């Protein structure tokens, strides 16, 4: 499916109203179609479901949570009634991000206390979580953690301007920092807010307070063949598109990168077709001005390949659903 059709635009499908304070993040349920979760400074998580009849979204569930209390909660039975099954204590201040690995056996968390924690679920112990690593390489708040889509390699990005890559190379199963992407290797010059992988897992996109979006790559087949760790290298930098901090980037299954920033815009980028001598490059596909009335904190593509739906969350208390489609 070619993404390079002319006149593509981001069409607002629906505005989800309900939160009473800024919305920090949205996530699509990977298993249940048309279900989104959003979390807000109003101390609630809301679950929104799309009706199969009317195709419109309503809020199904709202949960009160502790504030920046340093705890991570694991919930079960997402689509119907949710129950908090486990509370993971450990971080000294607020937990900023959580990520499950591909198999769902490991959970990574990170926070303002500069650390990254890895927890392993113990099925024989009633699904208890054991801490298997506390990683302290970053010198400042860790903004986000994300597991690689196919391998148990963990990525973290931070207020210290770097991206760190962690994996367990020895028999002890100890996790170590195997690479740091900093200004020295074409990395960002200010806080890195978000990371996302393409479907194949051989490319990664990051965004920052330095107003740039950067693309990185690795030789995934070498890494998967068990040769040991293969470093990531910088591919290109997209700058001059956003003029305020870029808070979120997300790479869709069909290759479109979405970015959301403090300039209230959502922008989409794709691999430009031209096979130039200098290597791959990326271009702007769509720029949605005033996507929200205030900062866009999070952008997330729906996990399926056809819908081309994008969810966004903002300081304006809204969650919006968009569709990438040809403009009339």
């Amino acid at each position, binding site marked *: 499916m070619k993404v390079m059709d002319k006149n593509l635009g981001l069409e607002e499908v629906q505005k989800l109203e309900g939160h009473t304070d800024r919305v920090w993040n949205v996530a699509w349920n990977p298993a249940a179609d048309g279900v989104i979760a959003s979390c807000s400074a109003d101390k609630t998580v809301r679950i929104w479901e799309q009706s199969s009849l009317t195709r419109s979204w309503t809020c199904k569930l709202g949960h009160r949570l502790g504030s920046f209390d340093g705890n991570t909660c694991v919930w079960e039975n997402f689509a119907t009634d949710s129950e908090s099954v486990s509370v993971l204590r450990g971080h000294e201040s607020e937990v900023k991000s959580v990520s499950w690995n591909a198999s769902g056996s490991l959970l990574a968390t990170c926070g*303002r206390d500069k650390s990254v924690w890895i927890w392993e679920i113990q099925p024989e112990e009633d699904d208890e979580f054991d801490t298997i690593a506390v990683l302290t390489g970053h010198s400042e708040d860790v903004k986000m953690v994300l597991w690689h889509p196919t391998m148990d390699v963990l990525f973290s990005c931070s207020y210290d301007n770097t991206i760190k890559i962690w994996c367990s190379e020895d028999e002890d199963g100890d996790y170590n920092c195997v690479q740091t992407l900093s200004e020295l290797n074409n990395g960002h010059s200010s806080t890195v807010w978000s990371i996302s992988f393409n479907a194949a897992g051989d490319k990664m996109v990051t965004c920052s307070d330095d107003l740039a979006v950067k693309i990185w790559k690795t030789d995934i087949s070498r890494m998967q063949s068990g040769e040991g760790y293969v470093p990531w290298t910088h591919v290109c930098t997209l700058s001059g598109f956003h003029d305020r901090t870029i808070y979120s980037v997300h790479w869709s299954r069909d290759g479109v990168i979405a970015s959301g920033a*403090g300039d209230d815009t959502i922008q989409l980028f794709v691999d430009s077709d031209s096979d130039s001598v200098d290597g791959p490059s990326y271009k702007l596909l769509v720029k949605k001005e005033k996507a929200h009335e*205030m900062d866009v904190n999070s952008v997330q593509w729906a996990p399926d390949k056809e819908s081309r739906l994008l969810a966004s969350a903002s300081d304006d208390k809204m969650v919006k659903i968009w569709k990438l489609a040809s403009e009339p």
Partner: protein
Amino acid sequence: MVSGLINENPIIYPKKERRLRTDTSITDELTPEPIDQLEIFDHIRDIKDPEHPNTLEDLRVVTEDSVEVDDENSYVRVTFTPTVEHCSMATVIGLCVRVKLLRSLPSRYKIDIRVAPGSHATEDALNKQLNDKERVAAALENPNLVEMVDECLPSEE
């Protein structure tokens, strides 16, 4: 109570006369007037310094010229000058200015706060912190900081 202050002898400047606004031109009551430098300065001039019974204006921590505004693009930048180079109260002052502006300006506004270049020992680190929204949110969940900020902000009229 006096000992232990970062700056025991701040310089207090004479108060400038407050200019009264005279609207000679605009007669249409429905058109909102563009927000200008003076209006924004009016929001922050009476914030109290965290350590002294003087305002930020008295101590020239902020001046009318320290406010840069572009109403059409909903942008404001306030550059403040702490009274001493190692002022650890600089974070509190920056936070107070931000909170006051967040409460006083329309939500469309983008607000940047920074210390005057060369006026503080850890200028870059301070500026970064003052403009990171998660750090600001975390600071505002800290009861001690919130108490300090509340004491510095002028009470609502």
